[in-house]
């Protein structure tokens, strides 16, 4: 019912348009889309829409299936890894608790893990810690090989986990009789202030780069422009040394 009404209104609007713009009848025919063609368009449109929705639906379902498959594979791998760790745990428990043998542990583990397995089992704490960490363990260590330095046996002293006293608060024993101060001493502070004052002096001043602390020999002579000299100052020194040399020979 609403469709025919719209169509009638549309026809009336079109007629008004023709009248307003004084369009020739021949032109009018060319502008109007025939009804059959319009019907054809509508059905084609509906069909295309249905097809598109169908395709989208299929795509989404495919993605969901892929995700489920990936999850399944992950769970499989973790289960297998845990089975290996259980085996190793029993192995370690039956061995003696020495560091050397504990270091063998990881190598045994990697030997098992190596061939034909792409699981990264490089976490160097096989045994109880592995069990507790759960499925997260293997993924974090992928690609890195850490050096195992042995289980830290504290033998009753306690550590950070048990809340023992930290080493820097233990003051009973003093090493090296004299207590050395940390940081610069007062003299160094004064020297630093002098250095800063030096920096404020003009850089082009005479002897700015003079090394005041240089060790010189007994025969050292300062840079002095002598009286009966022509030429540069270093020549005065040469001349003086020559003159003294001559006098000594006499």
């Amino acid at each position, binding site marked *: 019912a609403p469709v025919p009404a719209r169509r009638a209104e549309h026809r009336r609007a079109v007629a008004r348009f023709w009248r307003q713009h004084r369009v020739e009848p021949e032109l009018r025919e060319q502008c109007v889309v025939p009804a059959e063609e319009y019907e054809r368009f509508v059905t084609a449109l509906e069909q295309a829409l249905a097809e598109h929705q169908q395709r989208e639906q299929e795509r989404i379902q495919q993605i969901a299936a892929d995700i489920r498959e990936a999850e399944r594979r992950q769970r499989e791998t973790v289960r297998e890894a845990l089975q290996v760790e259980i085996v190793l745990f029993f192995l370690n428990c039956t061995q003696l608790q020495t560091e050397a043998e504990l270091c063998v542990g990881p190598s045994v583990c990697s030997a098992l893990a190596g061939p034909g397995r792409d699981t990264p089992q490089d976490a160097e704490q096989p045994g109880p810690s592995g069990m507790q960490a759960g499925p997260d363990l293997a993924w974090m260590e992928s690609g890195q090989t850490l050096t195992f330095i042995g289980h830290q046996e504290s033998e009753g002293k306690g550590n950070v986990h048990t809340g023992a006293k930290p080493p820097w608060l233990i003051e009973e024993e003093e090493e090296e009789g004299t207590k050395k101060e940390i940081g610069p001493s007062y003299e160094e502070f004064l020297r630093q202030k002098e250095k800063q004052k*030096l920096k404020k*002096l*003009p850089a*082009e*001043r*005479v*002897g*700015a780069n*003079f090394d*005041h*602390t*240089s060790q*010189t020999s*007994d025969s*050292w*002579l*300062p*840079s*002095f*422009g*002598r*009286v*009966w000299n022509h030429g540069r*100052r270093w020549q005065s020194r040469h001349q*003086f040394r020559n*003159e*003294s040399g001559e006098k000594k020979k006499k």
Partner: protein
Amino acid sequence: MSFLLPKLASKREVDLAIKSVAEKVLVLRFGRDSDAVCLQLDDILAKTAHDLSKMAVIYLVDVNKVPVYTQYFDISYIPSTVFFFNGQHMKVDYGSPDHTKFVGSFKTKQDFIDLIEVIYRGAMRGKLIVRSPIDPKNIPKYDLLYQGI
């Protein structure tokens, strides 16, 4: 004497003074403590030393004790005063023939103070030779003879 001036008695001590005095004018008076003009000069040096302490360090050197430097600096008249800055010899044009040292005594304390100021400022600007501010009338006259000729 308000200020007792320090003395240098050997080449080693003079070397040490030249090398170690930093960022101040080093004044080396070459002469003899008993000489009349030296006494005059030493008096002026002693009285101005305190006021000039931020710009200058003053030492007295006995010419008999450092023959090497007496020859090297061509000291033929006493007192002769040589100026250094950061190990570098500072020359001054007094209007007299010898720019390498100041020969004789100063007329007034102010003359010496002005001279030190001029040397200090010149050194800060990188000049190895400066012009003396002292009136040429007040500069002692002497003949500069080449090796006694």
